[in-house]
């Protein structure tokens, strides 16, 4: 099982994500200019400020050759996890519903928050249980999850809301305290918290490992049944 972690110019957390993935499986970096994903089993679109994010977070990265390949990979059912800037990129690319708006405070916020697992029946959360509380840091300026009311209702009804900020922990004003969502096919997930920064108790928490462990287990299970 091999994770591929995208690297855009301006990515900041790609090495952290790579190291986090390697705690659970093999992992390699994928250069933004490459159209070939090199046969990886799951893709992580990492955090940072891809291409500087001067226009709008994630607006440029979605046009990169590697993202075109990721879109094909996702449409074929491959699992894709977008973290922070990666979540923004996946929304911009239309692979996830909704959008990320500037935080209510209009300030960057870096804070350890509690998030609750809402749906544990996905490739990203399968090693957790509904109601599990994970301590994971957020760090962003543009993390307020927004979608029209009708879309939110659909997301809730389809079980596409995977993570919610715990009561009183919403750091950015996200609607319905949404911290992470997936697509209808449940193979593309985006979240604002940084699970790659929560894989070691020494640096704060190991709770974020659930996402990487789940993805690794998902891929291993596919291989076993193939």
């Amino acid at each position: 099982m091999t994770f591929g972690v995208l690297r855009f110019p301006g990515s900041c957390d790609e090495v952290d994500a790579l190291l986090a993935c390697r705690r659970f499986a093999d992992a390699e970096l994928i250069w933004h200019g490459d159209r070939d994903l090199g046969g990886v089993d799951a893709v992580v679109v990492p955090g940072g400020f891809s291409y500087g994010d001067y226009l709008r977070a994630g607006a440029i990265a979605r046009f990169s050759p590697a993202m075109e390949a990721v879109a094909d990979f996702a449409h074929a059912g491959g699992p894709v996890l977008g973290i922070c800037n990666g979540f923004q990129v996946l929304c911009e690319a239309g692979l996830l519903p909704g959008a990320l708006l500037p935080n209510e405070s209009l300030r960057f916020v870096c804070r350890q928050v509690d998030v609750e697992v809402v749906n544990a029946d996905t490739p990203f959360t399968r090693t957790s249980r509904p109601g599990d509380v994970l301590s994971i840091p957020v760090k962003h300026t543009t993390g307020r999850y927004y979608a029209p009311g009708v879309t939110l209702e659909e997301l809730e009804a389809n079980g596409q809301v995977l993570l919610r900020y715990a009561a009183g922990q919403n750091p950015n004003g996200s609607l319905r305290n949404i911290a992470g969502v997936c697509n209808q096919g449940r193979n593309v997930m985006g979240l604002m918290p940084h699970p790659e920064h929560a894989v070691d108790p020494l640096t704060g928490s190991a709770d974020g490992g659930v996402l990487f462990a789940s993805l690794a287990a998902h891929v291993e299970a596919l291989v076993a049944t193939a």
Partner: protein
Amino acid sequence: MSTLAPHRELGLTDAEYDGIVERLGREPNGLELAVFSLMWSEHCAYKHSKKLLRELPTEGPAVVMGPGENAGAVDVGDGLVVAFKVESHNHPSAVEPFQGAATGVGGILRDVFAIGARPIAVLDSLRFGELDSERSRFLFDWSVKGIGHYGNSIGVPTVGGEVLFEPSYEQNCLVNAMCVGLARRDATIRSAASGVGNLLVLMGARTGRDGIGGASVLASAELSAEDSAKRPTVQIGDPFEEKKLLECCLELLDRGTLVALQDLGAAGLSSSSSEMASKGEVGLDIDVSKVPLREAGMEPFEIMISESQERMLCVIEPGRLSELLEICERWEVRANAIGSVTDTGALRVFDGDELVGDMPVAALVDDVPLYDLEPEEPTGRLYPDPPARIDAGAPVERALLALLGSSNVASKRFAFEQYDSIVGSRTVRRPEAADAAVLQLAGDGGSGAIAVSIDGNGRRVAADPYTGAVEAVLECARNLACVGAEPLGLTNCLNFGNPEKPHIAWQLTRAVEGLRDACLALGVPVVGGNVSLYNEGAEGAIYPTPIVGMVGSLPDPASTPVSAFTEPGHVIALVGPFTPDLAGSELEKLRGRLSTGLPPVDLAVQAEGLAALREAVRGGGLATVHDVSEGGLACALAESCVSGRVGASVDLSPLGASDPNVALFGEGPGGAIVAGPAAVVDRLPGAVRLGDVGGDHLQIEGLLDFDVGALAERFEGAIPAAYA
């Protein structure tokens, strides 16, 4: 606009102009005069401080690079070195805080990756006027945003820092940024140009008219009311450009492509090229027509002195140019060969074929006029008393709440939550979690961790420049000791007023003596630093503010204590040679008094105390260690309670202070509170047991009793309330 002679308008004295003529053997042309004015400015030449700085100890067993390189570096074992340096960006930030602070961070990052180290941490030391001033709220808010904008975007964590608010910084705020980088010892590179015929390559952003004359106009003269007109001399930062430049340079270094590397900072191409030539004892030819420009029609002199950001200069062998260009293209970094190394010993500037400037490198860099300070101890008071916030007779309950809610003591969460403190996966102790930031090196092939801190207290230095500077070193070393770290090296930024004034010269001289003596007593070498003079507004000079940054190493990050109380039942004790005194304290400030004089410090005793504290922490088992600083013992205890959301019951009578205000709020070097299991605390030599962790109140026997929630509201709410 001005009728001054050209050299005076550029900040040169008549005698300095004559010196230029003498060194050239002729009158300088306009380009040469512009270059000299910058190279001979205080900012580039340290002409008022260089002689003084020679007194600082610079050698130690861990030193790999000392002062003179882009950054200092110390050996942290396992084949790794840590590079670090602090630099000021005070005047740009006072004129335009967002870009001023942002480019301050950008500049210090370049200093560190210029020696081949990957930046792994930023710390900031900030000073503003009081938060009830609209100007100061604006400067603080936008400086923090600027620091965050640059550091967050480039993926380097801001792991610590400090902010103090005093009336003397109302006009002239201080923004000092420190960067810490990590490199393999065998991968570091120096800035000396070498190899006649080798190429000089400019990498990074295009060159524009921004920041022209920043070093001489902004950094080397006092601020005045017309400074908003100087906004165009402030540079604009582009962290994305720098991120690409950083990754590109590190890849070039990793492949061994470069002979030498230097960042472009103050005075742009002029200083970077002449310093590279000076260190390598060679000459350089530069063709400004090969420099990619941001706008058409720039004069050769403008190209030579532009301070456009995000540029680096390197020397390579001609045969490796295509390899360099290939790597630069991959990172989308512009690179142009703009000149070559010569044996002329001169910096020659060409515009195409035309020679437009020819200056001996020695005259630009080495043979610069240096001035002796003329220090004179002032007879009267230099600074007004601060406004009184509480009565001298206020009850201790009121004093504690006032202190916790004062901007100097209150939590700086408002600021540090705007910084990414965790990117890089090294941060074991985040801001306010412990007295120093702790960064693990396990992922880099290191066995332990480093601790970093940055400290200074201008008000105490104003009270006594010598002792105040000594205390800054001790405070920084104590913060390191609180996490078990042994200091390996020190960097400093000397923020002072106009050194041509005798009383400022006296402050500077005494403060440097204090730094020297403290460094010698602790055995900590100074590996680099920066001097920022002329920090004055219409109402006078800032408090003399030497800022000290230190890097230390510790063997086991997992056992690092925190500053919070963690477990009911833990025993609390005071350790270290601590004699509380109200002179120079925060309480005195709130009472509206600025002290003159501080109690003398016994450096030998303090050095022993620091070693004992470090050993106590390394011995293991201590859950909590927090030094006693601003606001004294009562504030230190309150902070540990608030951080841990748990109470404590203590009795200060074993300390024997007769005045409760002194016992509770007295300050001075040397003290730390510790907490842990009784078996651990009781065996610490010289520990004075004060009480226990537990409950939800902070009770100080016979003096105070507060709900921890109420203390938290004060401590955490004060700064956000200023922006409500």
